[in-house]
């Protein structure tokens, strides 16, 4: 090694340490912003060190790539609305995967040894499936594509054949690296596989898919690191891979479903034996709702994806303030899979300036539920469904839910009586203490706010 190479490698070590410490700081709300900055500096350091390498003789390609990509990324990041965050994260993620695919493909020109060939094939494979998988996720989240599940006869067989042919072509490429056709085959099959893997997954399972794709993009970078023999790619890539896997695990646990169940079987396909639900629906007007809230001293708000759709977070914040001025204690109960990505509700409420210490996790709000006068459910359905707790025939039986039905009164804000995702009947709507406030969530809450002021 020349002394310059030593300097570059040492810079990578420093960058790795900064990435690690940055991720650690991201783990607490007070220090998260600093953590992100530190991580960005680590990236800058890694990029500058890479530019110092003596193998680099011309800069115009690098520079133009950086200017174009940076301009696009920067513009989009500044313009995007907070409600569009899930699809944005998916899209950025896909580009990371695509970059790893390209790096893997380009690394072929280095006349690689067998071990490197395996890494190349892995980076192409994971990168390719991350790319198209993220694009499909983007389409579903932005509703460019239908957010439902896409199922067809023989899907399992087609997918199994696809996996087998991906593996076969990958092996063939490693055996015959001179025949570049094999690599093209791996590229196209992995792109196709990304599409096939995500189309059967419905909107409500998106938090799992996004976390998993996030993990894949890290693993693809990691494989690309093996392909071009670079430590910093391996370290940073595997940190991302590990964090994505943990989030995936948390999301699966919050739905009481195994990862393979989410990935390989649509929610609706499980037999939903329609058990009769006893009771009747009791609608309530905004005015009557106001009288109940006015007398309440302890209120919990449970938001779901419907709050994001109705863009109701700002009026919710107003209502929260009015209730507090009225002497009530207000908390939010956030289910881990409420919304379309991990932490979706938290971001929306933060955008509306709701302090994050009012946001309670499911395990913290459930023990308090019996002392709550009014629980307001805004656009959430499955995550507050008592059938998950006590109806064994329900497809979501066993999923941990927020027990809003234990509160003295429950308001459910809902557009109409159409059942939620996958058509699961919700006995909550028929309970003695439940009142349905029909209409657009934003309008209904704005109505309550008007009554207060």
């Amino acid at each position: 090694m020349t002394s310059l190479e030593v300097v570059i490698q040492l810079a990578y070590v420093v960058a790795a340490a900064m990435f690690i410490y940055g991720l650690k700081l991201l783990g607490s709300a007070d220090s998260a912003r600093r953590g992100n900055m530190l991580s960005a500096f680590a990236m800058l350091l890694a990029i500058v060190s890479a530019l110092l390498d003596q193998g680099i003789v011309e800069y115009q390609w690098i520079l133009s790539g950086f200017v174009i990509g940076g301009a696009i990324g920067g513009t989009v990041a500044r313009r995007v609305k907070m409600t569009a965050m899930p699809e944005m994260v998916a899209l950025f993620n896909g580009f990371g995967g695509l970059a790893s695919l390209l790096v893997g493909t380009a690394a072929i020109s280095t006349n690689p040894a067998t071990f490197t060939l395996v890494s190349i094939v892995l980076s192409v494979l994971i990168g390719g499936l991350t790319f198209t998988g993220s694009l499909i996720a983007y389409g579903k989240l932005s509703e460019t594509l239908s957010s439902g599940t896409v199922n067809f006869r023989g899907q399992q067989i087609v997918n199994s054949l696809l996996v087998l042919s991906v593996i076969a072509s990958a092996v063939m490429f490693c055996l015959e690296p001179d025949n570049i056709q094999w690599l093209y085959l791996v590229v196209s099959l992995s792109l196709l596989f990304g599409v096939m893997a995500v189309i059967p997954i419905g909107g409500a399972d998106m938090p799992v898919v996004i976390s998993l794709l996030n993990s894949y993009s890290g693993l693809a970078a990691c494989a690309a690191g093996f392909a071009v023999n670079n430590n910093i790619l391996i370290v940073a890539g595997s940190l991302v891979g590990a964090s994505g896997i943990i989030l995936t695990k948390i999301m699966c646990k919050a739905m009481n479903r195994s990862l393979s169940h989410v990935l390989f079987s649509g929610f609706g396909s499980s037999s939903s034996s329609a058990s009769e639900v006893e009771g009747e629906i009791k609608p309530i007007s905004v005015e009557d709702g106001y009288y109940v809230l006015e007398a309440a001293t302890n209120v919990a708000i449970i938001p779901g994806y419907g709050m994001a759709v109705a863009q109701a977070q700002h009026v919710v914040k107003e209502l929260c303030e009015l209730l507090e001025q009225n002497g009530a204690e207000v908390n939010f109960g956030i289910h881990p899979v409420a919304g379309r990505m991990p932490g979706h509700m938290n971001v929306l409420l933060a955008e509306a300036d709701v302090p994050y210490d009012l946001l309670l996790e499911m395990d913290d709000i459930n023990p308090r539920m019996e002392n709550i006068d009014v629980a307001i459910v805004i656009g959430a359905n499955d995550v507050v469904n008592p059938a998950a707790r006590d109806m064994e025939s329900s497809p979501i039986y066993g999923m941990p839910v927020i027990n809003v039905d234990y509160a003295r009164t429950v308001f459910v804000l809902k557009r109409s009586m159409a059942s939620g995702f996958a058509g699961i009947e919700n006995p909550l709507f028929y309970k003695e203490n439940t009142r349905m406030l029909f209409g657009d969530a934003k309008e209904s809450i704005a109505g309550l706010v008007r009554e207060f002021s």
Partner: protein
Amino acid sequence: MEAVFLTFILMLAIFLGFELINKVPATLHTPLMSGANAISGITIVGAIGLAGTGQQDVSNWLGAAAVAFASINVVGGYLVTDRMLAMFKKRGD
């Protein structure tokens, strides 16, 4: 021997990753994800090495394209994460 050495690094980094992320509160799940996402753009470092060889061949151009896509990921990812984190406030802040 190089391969074994690299695999060793991989193993340690994955364990470290698990330990680091395990205790993150649910409030920060989105910023964590998008921040991690930005880090996965590290592949730009590999792309730079391929885009700057000056050989005017296919892998040169693939490398340049990879730099562009990874830049979207890096720049976009960090900025969007920062925008989100700037909104998170405690009561009274």
